[in-house]
C-alpha cells in the first residue's frame, strides 16, 4: 500500500492538471488583488493608492485577513471544486482510457488498494491545494493589503448575520482550521468524482458529471424559492467548513454537518469500491 501511495504521489506530482490547478489559483489571487484594488479606487474616488493598504482610519476594517477570507470564500464555491473533480475524476477513468488500468490490474495488487491509494492521494492533493491557496492569500494580503484583526460583516459572504471580530492571532488559526475543514468538505466532491470515475470510461465524463451534479445542487440550494429542499443537498452540508470563520465557532453544528459530509465520503467510497471490485475492465 505504501509503495502504491508513493507511485500515486509521483503520478500526481507529474500530472499536468495538478500543475494547472496551482497556476490557476495563483492567477486567481492576482485577479482578486486587482479586483479589490480597482474596486477600492472606484469607491474611494481614486485614492486607493494611499488607502488600499490601510483603508480609512482603521487598519482593521479591510486588511490582508479580510482579503484572504473573501478570496478563499469566493474560490471555494466553484474554482477549487472544479480542480478537485478534475483530478479525482481522472483517477480511474483516466487510467482506463490510456489503458494503464489494465496494466495495473494484472499486477498483484488488489483493486481495493489501487482505489484507496488513489483516493488518499486525491485527499492529500486537496489538502495541499487548500493549504497552498490559503497560504498564498494570506501572503498576498500581508504584502499588498496589510495585517490586522479579522472583521466580519454581514454581506456578500453570507457568513455572519451580525458584525463580529476575530483577533489577528486567533484568525490565523482559523485559517489553519479552514484548510482542514475545507479539505473535508471537498472530499465529498472527490468521493463523488471517484465514483463517477469508476462508472464512466472517460475522465471528461466523470469530471463533467461531478461538476454538473455539484452545480445543480449548489445553484438550486441558493434559490430562495427552493429553500425547503436545501437540507437535502450535500452542497448545503459542505458549507459547514465556513463555520470556522464565525466569531464563535458553533461546534455542535460544525460536528453535525462535518459528520454528514463524512457519511457522504465514506458511503460514496464504499459504493465506488464495491463497483470497482466487480467491474469488468474492458478498456
Amino acid at each position, binding site marked *: 500500500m505504501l*509503495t*502504491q501511495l*508513493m*507511485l500515486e504521489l*509521483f*503520478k500526481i506530482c*507529474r500530472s499536468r492538471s495538478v500543475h494547472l490547478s496551482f497556476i490557476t489559483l495563483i492567477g486567481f489571487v492576482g485577479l482578486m488583488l486587482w479586483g479589490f484594488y480597482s474596486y477600492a479606487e472606484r469607491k474611494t474616488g481614486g485614492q486607493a493608492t494611499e488607502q488600499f493598504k490601510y483603508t480609512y482610519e482603521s487598519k482593521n476594517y479591510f486588511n490582508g485577513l479580510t482579503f484572504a477570507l473573501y478570496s478563499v470564500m469566493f474560490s471555494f464555491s466553484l474554482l477549487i471544486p472544479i480542480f478537485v473533480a478534475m483530478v479525482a475524476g481522472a483517477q480511474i477513468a483516466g487510467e482506463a482510457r*490510456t*489503458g*494503464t488500468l*489494465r*496494466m*495495473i*490490474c*494484472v*499486477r*498483484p*495488487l*488488489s483493486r481495493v488498494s489501487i482505489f484507496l491509494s488513489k483516493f488518499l492521494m486525491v485527499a492529500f492533493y486537496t489538502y495541499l491545494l487548500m493549504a497552498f491557496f490559503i497560504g498564498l492569500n494570506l501572503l498576498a494580503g500581508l504584502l499588498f493589503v496589510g495585517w490586522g484583526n479579522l472583521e466580519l460583516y454581514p454581506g456578500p459572504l453570507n457568513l455572519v448575520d451580525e458584525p463580529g471580530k476575530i483577533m489577528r492571532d486567533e484568525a490565523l488559526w482559523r485559517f489553519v482550521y479552514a484548510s482542514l475543514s475545507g479539505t473535508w468538505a471537498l472530499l465529498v466532491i472527490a468521493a463523488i468524482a471517484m465514483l463517477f470515475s469508476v462508472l464512466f470510461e472517460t475522465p471528461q465524463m466523470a469530471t463533467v458529471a461531478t461538476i454538473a451534479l455539484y452545480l445543480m445542487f449548489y445553484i438550486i440550494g441558493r434559490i430562495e424559492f427552493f429553500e425547503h429542499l436545501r437540507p437535502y443537498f450535500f452542497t448545503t452540508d459542505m458549507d459547514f467548513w465556513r463555520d470556522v470563520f464565525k466569531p464563535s465557532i458553533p461546534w455542535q453544528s460544525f460536528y453535525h454537518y462535518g459528520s454528514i459530509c463524512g457519511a457522504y465520503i465514506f458511503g460514496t467510497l464504499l459504493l465506488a469500491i464495491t463497483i470497482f471490485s*466487480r467491474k*469488468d*475492465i*474492458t478498456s
Partner: protein
Amino acid sequence: MSDAVLETELLTKKYSRRVVVNQLSLKVERGDIFGFLGRNGAGKSTTIRMALGLVRPTSGRVRLLGHDMSKHPLRALARIGAIIEAPAFYDHFSGWRNLRMFAAMSGGAKTERIEAVLDIVGLRDRAHDPVRVYSHGMRQRLGIAQALLPAPEFVILDEPTDGLDPQGIHEMRLLIRRLRDELGLTIMLSSHLLFEVEQICNRIAIIDQGRLIYQGSIEELIAKTTTIKLTVDRIEEAYQLLSHNPKLSVSRNGDQSLYVIMADDQIPLVNALLVERGFRVMELSPQRETLEQVFLRLTQNPATTEAKN
C-alpha cells in the same frame, strides 16, 4: 497433479443476452508456447481478460498457476507477466521510469533486473527517452519488458504483433523464441498472424463465436485431414459420384480438377472406386494444408462455404 499453468473450465461470459465466450475449457501446459487463435470478436481477448481477473466470468472457473482466480487472484498474478492488446504506459515518463513503476507494483526490481529485461527486448539505449516518442514496435517491446520484470513463470501476450511492420513482426518472433529458448517460459500467444503462430507454437486452441473448435498440437490438426487434388476425365460425373459420399468433402476447381478432403485411409478407396467406374485418373496428389488454410476452413461460416462451393 496436473502441470497446467492455465486451465479454464466451462468458462462463459455473457453481456446481457450476447454470449461472448461459451463454455470454454482450455489447458495450457507448462513449457508450452500456446497459440490462441480466433477471428476478430471470437472471444480471445475476453477469455484472456477472464484468465487474468480483469473480467468476471458469468460462469465457469479459471485456475492460473494452480490458483483459483475467483479466490486467490493475487497469488497467481504475482507469478505471471502479461500484455493485453496494445501495451499502455505513462507517456510522459521514460521507459525506464515506467518499468520502475510497474516493477514496484510487483514487489520491486533491482536496477540490474531492469537493465537485464531492457537488454532482452533491445531497448536499453532508448530506455531514458519518454515513452511518447517511442515507435509502436518499441512500445510493444517495452510491454514485453514490463511483463518479464517480475521474473514470471508464465507470460500471456495478447496480439503482440498487432500493428507491427514486417520487420517488427520478425523481431517479435525472434524475441518470443528467445523467451522460450533462453528463459524457458511458458507462453500463451494470441495472434492473427497464423504463419507466425505456426512457426513458434507447439500447441494451439482455435475458438469461433466463443466456442472452442480445436485444442491440441498443430501437427495433429494439420495431419487429421488431407486434401487431395484429383484430375479425371468426365469431371462432372466424378463430382456427382464423390459428393454423395458423406465421408468426403468435395469442391471443384473449374473444369480441370476436384479437391477432395478426406482421411488418409480413404485415399485408396476413392481411387479404386473411380477406376472401377471407368474413370481415367490422371492425378491424385495430396495437398498438405497450412495452418492458415485449416483455420480458415474451420472458422469460415456456412454462407462463405456455400459461396465457395
